[in-house]
C-alpha cells in the first residue's frame, strides 16, 4: 500500500519521463519490498528426514511351507476360518494358482493347507458366509495372468465351505477382464449378499456389482468402465444405512471413485480423489476409521513401480495417504508420508495407545542397495499427525500385509506376504509372522 501511494504521488507531481522511470523501476522490482512472505503449501514429508528407525520392535519369522523358486503371494487376510477361536490366515499364491490356509493349530503355531488349486492367478480373498449356513465361504478374484494382458481371462469364484473347511468351487464370472477384487455387500436391501467387483483388465476394465438372483447366481450391473481397478471397498460411506462402494483406479486414470447407493442398488458415482500424474502408481486401498469418528475412511497407497523403464522402481511421490470421511459422501485427502514402492495400507493400533496407526509395505524399492525400507509404521501421535517409523529393511518385496491379534496377549501381530517377480532374487521370503519384541 505504501509503495502504491508513493508511486501515485510521483505520478501526480512529475513529468511523464520521470513517471515512466519510476513506474518501470517499481514494476521492475515487482514491488517486492511490499510483498508478503511466500505462503508455503502444506508440507510434503521429506524423503530423507523426519523418519526414524524402530527396528526390532517387531521381528519376522518365516511361516508356512518351504518354497523353491520365487514366491508370488498376492494377498493375505486374517480370519478364523474354522471358527475354533484361534485366528488364521487365508491367502493367494498367484504363480501356483492356489488359495491357502495358514491354520493356527495351537497358539502361535501355524500349519499351511491348500484350500483350492488351479485358481487361475488368484489375487484377492475375502471370507464371508454367502449361503448363510454358519460357516465362512471364500470370495476369490483371479486375474489368470498377473503381468499385462488385456484378454478376457478374469474369474470370480466363490469357494463354498461345507463346514469342515472343504470347499466346492462356484464360478461366478468367467471370460471377463482380469479381476482384481471382489467383496460382498447387500446392495439392493433384499437381505441377500451381492458382490462388488473390480476388473483391472489392462486396456479395458470395469467396476460392477453383481446382484444376487439365486444361491450362486448373479446379474451384472456396470458402474464404471475404466481400466486399472485395484481394489473395491464396501461400506456405508454416507451414513444413510445402506452399503456403498469405493474403487481405486490406477493405469492412466489414477482416481478413487465413490458409488453412493440409494438402498435399492441404484448407484450415483463421483470422483473423490484424483491425480493428474499418470505415473502416480495407485497400488492398494483399504477401509479404516483413523480418526475414530465412526465414519469409514479410506487408506490408500501409491507405489506400483512399473513404468517406462526396464527396471521397476520408486518415485518421489510414492507413499501412503488417507481420505478422511467428512460425511455425506465428502472426503478430504491427507498425506501420511513417503514410502517408495508402497503397498497394502492397513489400519492398526500397533503400540496400543488408543490411536489408530497405519502400517504399509514396500514392494518396489531399490533392493539392490542395503537399507531400503520394506515395512513402515506411520504412528499416530494422538493429534492425527503421523510419525513415519521404519520397522524393517527386510524381508523385501512385500506386497501384502495383515494385522490382527492372534493370541491372548492382546498385542497385534503382523503377517506379510512377498511377491518376488523381479530381481534381486535374494533374501527371499514367502510368508512371515511378525511378533512384537518381548
Amino acid at each position, binding site marked *: 500500500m505504501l509503495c502504491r501511494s508513493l508511486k501515485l504521488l*510521483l505520478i501526480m*507531481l512529475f513529468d511523464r519521463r520521470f513517471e515512466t522511470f519510476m513506474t518501470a523501476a517499481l514494476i521492475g522490482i*515487482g514491488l*517486492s519490498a511490499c510483498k508478503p512472505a511466500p505462503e508455503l503449501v502444506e508440507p510434503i514429508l521429506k*524423503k530423507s528426514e523426519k523418519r526414524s528407525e524402530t527396528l526390532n520392535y517387531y521381528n519376522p519369522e518365516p511361516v508356512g511351507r518351504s518354497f523353491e523358486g520365487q514366491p508370488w503371494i498376492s494377498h493375505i487376510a486374517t480370519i478364523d476360518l474354522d471358527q475354533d477361536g484361534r485366528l488364521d490366515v487365508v491367502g493367494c499364491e498367484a504363480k501356483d494358482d492356489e488359495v491357502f490356509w495358514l491354520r493356527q493349530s495351537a497358539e502361535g503355531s501355524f500349519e499351511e493347507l491348500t484350500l483350492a488349486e488351479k485358481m487361475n492367478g488368484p489375487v484377492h480373498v475375502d471370507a464371508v458366509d454367502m449361503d448363510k449356513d454358519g460357516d465362512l465361504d471364500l470370495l476369490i478374484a483371479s486375474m489368470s*495372468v498377473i503381468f499385462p494382458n488385456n484378454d478376457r481371462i478374469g474369474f470370480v469364484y466363490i469357494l463354498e465351505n461345507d463346514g469342515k473347511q472343504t470347499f466346492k468351487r462356484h464360478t461366478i464370472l468367467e471370460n471377463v477382464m482380469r479381476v482384481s477384487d471382489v467383496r460382498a455387500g447387500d446392495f439392493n436391501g433384499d437381505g441377500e449378499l451381492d458382490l462388488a467387483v473390480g476388473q483391472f483388465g489392462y486396456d479395458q476394465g470395469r467396476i460392477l456389482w453383481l446382484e444376487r438372483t439365486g444361491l450362486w447366481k448373479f446379474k451384472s450391473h456396470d458402474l464404471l468402465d475404466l481400466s486399472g481397478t485395484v481394489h473395491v471397498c464396501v461400506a456405508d460411506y454416507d451414513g444413510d444405512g445402506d452399503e456403498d462402494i469405493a474403487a481405486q483406479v490406477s493405469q492412466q486414470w489414477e482416481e478413487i471413485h465413490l458409488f453412493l447407493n440409494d438402498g435399492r442398488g441404484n448407484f450415483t458415482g463421483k470422483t473423490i480423489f484424483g491425480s493428474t500424474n499418470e505415473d502416480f502408481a495407485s497400488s492398494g486401498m483399504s477401509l479404516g476409521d483413523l480418526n475414530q469418528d465412526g465414519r469409514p475412511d479410506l487408506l490408500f497407497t501409491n507405489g506400483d513401480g512399473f513404468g517406462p523403464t526396464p527396471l521397476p522402481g520408486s518415485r518421489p511421490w510414492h507413499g501412503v495417504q488417507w481420505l478422511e470421511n467428512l460425511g455425506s459422501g465428502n472426503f478430504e485427502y491427507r498425506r501420511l508420508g513417503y514410502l517408495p514402492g508402497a503397498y497394502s495400507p492397513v489400519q492398526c493400533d500397533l503400540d496400543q495407545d488408543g490411536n489408530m496407526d497405519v502400517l504399509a509395505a514396500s514392494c518396489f524399492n531399490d533392493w539392490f542397495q542395503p537399507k531400503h525400507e520394506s515395512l513402515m509404521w506411520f504412528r499416530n501421535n494422538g493429534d492425527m499427525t503421523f510419525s513415519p517409523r521404519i520397522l524393517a529393511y527386510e524381508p523385501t518385496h512385500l506386497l501384502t500385509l495383515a494385522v490382527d491379534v492372534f493370541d491372548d496377549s492382546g498385542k497385534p501381530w503382523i503377517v506379510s506376504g512377498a511377491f518376488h517377480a523381479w530381481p534381486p532374487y535374494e533374501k527371499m521370503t514367502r510368508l512371515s509372522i511378525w511378533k512384537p519384541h518381548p
Partner: protein
Amino acid sequence: MRSLQHAVSIALGIVSIFLLASCGSGNREFVLESIPERPTLSGWPERLHQRIESAELQAMSGGNPVESLVKLARLYHANGFYEEASQCYQGLITLQSKEAKWPHMLAEILSSYGKLEDALPYRELVMKLDPEYIPAMVRLGDVYLKQNKANEAEKVYTRVLKQDRDNPYAQLGLARLDIASGDLENAQQRLEAATRKTSLRIGSDLLATVYEKRGLNSLAAAIRGRAKSSGTFTDIPDTWLFEIYFESFNTYQMAVAAGMADQSGDSAACIRLLNQAIQLSPRDAYLHFQLGLVYLRIGIDYQALKSFEETAKLDPKFSDAWFQLAQLKSKEGDIVAATQTIATGLYHNPDSPSLRLVNSERLNAIGDLSGSIKEAETAIELRPEEADSYASLAALYFSSEQTAIGVELMKKALERESLHPFALSTMAFYSISTGQEKDARQYIRKARLQPRLPVGDLKHLETSFRQKFGKMP
C-alpha cells in the same frame, strides 16, 4: 512554482533512490526467505552439492538473486526434493509474477501427490498468465474433471480445441464427460478423432469400450486384437517440465522421464536424456539397455547393438541383453554370431527362460529336435506359470507327429492362459480333424473371445468345422 517543483523533485529523487535501494534489498531478502533449508544430501554426487551451494551463494550475494533461485528450484525439482522446490517456486511466483512456468511447476509437484485442491489456484493462474500453453490448459481441464466440475472442465477442453483443433487429450477429456452423461455417440466421435490423430495411442482403450457399449463389437475387437496389452496412453508432452530433468543427478528418475518422452514420440529427447544419465552413471547396465531398446524401436540397429553389447559387458547376468543381441545378430543373418551369443548368454544365465526358448528355436531350425525339446522343457521348469513355453513345446511335439503329448501340453498352456490364441486355434483345429465335435465347438467359442486371433484364422476354423460336421459351430 518551478523552484518548488525543483525542490520537491530533488527531495523525491532522494526518497526514490532510498526506495529503490530498499526495494532491491527487499528483493534479495525475499529471495533469501525463499531459499529452503538444505536437505540431507548424503549419498548424492558431489556435483549436486556444489551446484546447490553455488546457487545458494549466488542467491545470497550474487548479481542476479532471482535467477539463482530459479537454478535452485530446478535443481531441487529435478532431483526429487519436492518440498524444497515448492518453496523456491512459491518465491518465484511472487518475484516473477508474470511468469507462468512457476505456478505450473508448483502445480505439477502438488498434483503429482494428488493434491489437486492445492494445485487448482496455481493451475488457474497459469491459464491467466499463459493461455496458450496447451499442456497447462489440459491439466486444468483434468483437474476440473477429477473434481467433478464437469462444466468447468468442458469449457477448458473446448478452449484447448479452439487453439489446437484435434488435441487428443482435450478430446479424451470431453469424451469422458460424454460417457459420464451417457452420450456415447459423441464420445465415440471424440475418441475416434483422438485415435486418428495419434495412431491409436490416445483414446483407443476407451474407444474399444464405447464401441462395445454401442454394440459395435467388430470395431472393438479390431482395437483389442492389436496387442496382448497395449498400454499405449502417454501423458501430454510438457516441455517446461521435461527440460528440468537435464538438471537431474538421479539417473533412475532421468530414465523414467526419458521413457515417458520416448512413449510420447520424442525419441531424440529420450536419447539425449539417457546419454546424460549414462554420463553420470556409466556402469548402470539398465541405462544402456533402455537406450538399446529405444534405438531398436526407431530402427537404428547398429546403435542398439552397441548398447546391448555394453549392457552385457557391464552385467553378463543381464539375460535380456543377450536375448536382444542374439535377435539382432539373427536379423543381420549372422547365424554363427547369433549362436555364439546365445551360448555365451546361457553360460552366464542358465536360468533364463527366454534364452532357453530362443535356443530351442535355434536347435529346431537346424534339425536338432531332441535338443530343442529339452531346451523348451527347461524353459517350462524355470517359469511354469507362463503359457507360451507350454505352447512352444507343444508345437515341437505336433511338428514331430507326437500329437498326444502335444495335445496335453496345449491343454496345459490353456490352463495357464485360457484364451492363448495359438493354443486355442491349434486345439480347435486338432479337435475338428479328429472328429471331436463338442471339444471343437468349445474351442471355437473361446476363440471368438480372442480378438488377437486373426479373423481369417477364425473363419478357416469355422469353415473346417462346417465341412467336418455339416453344421455351424
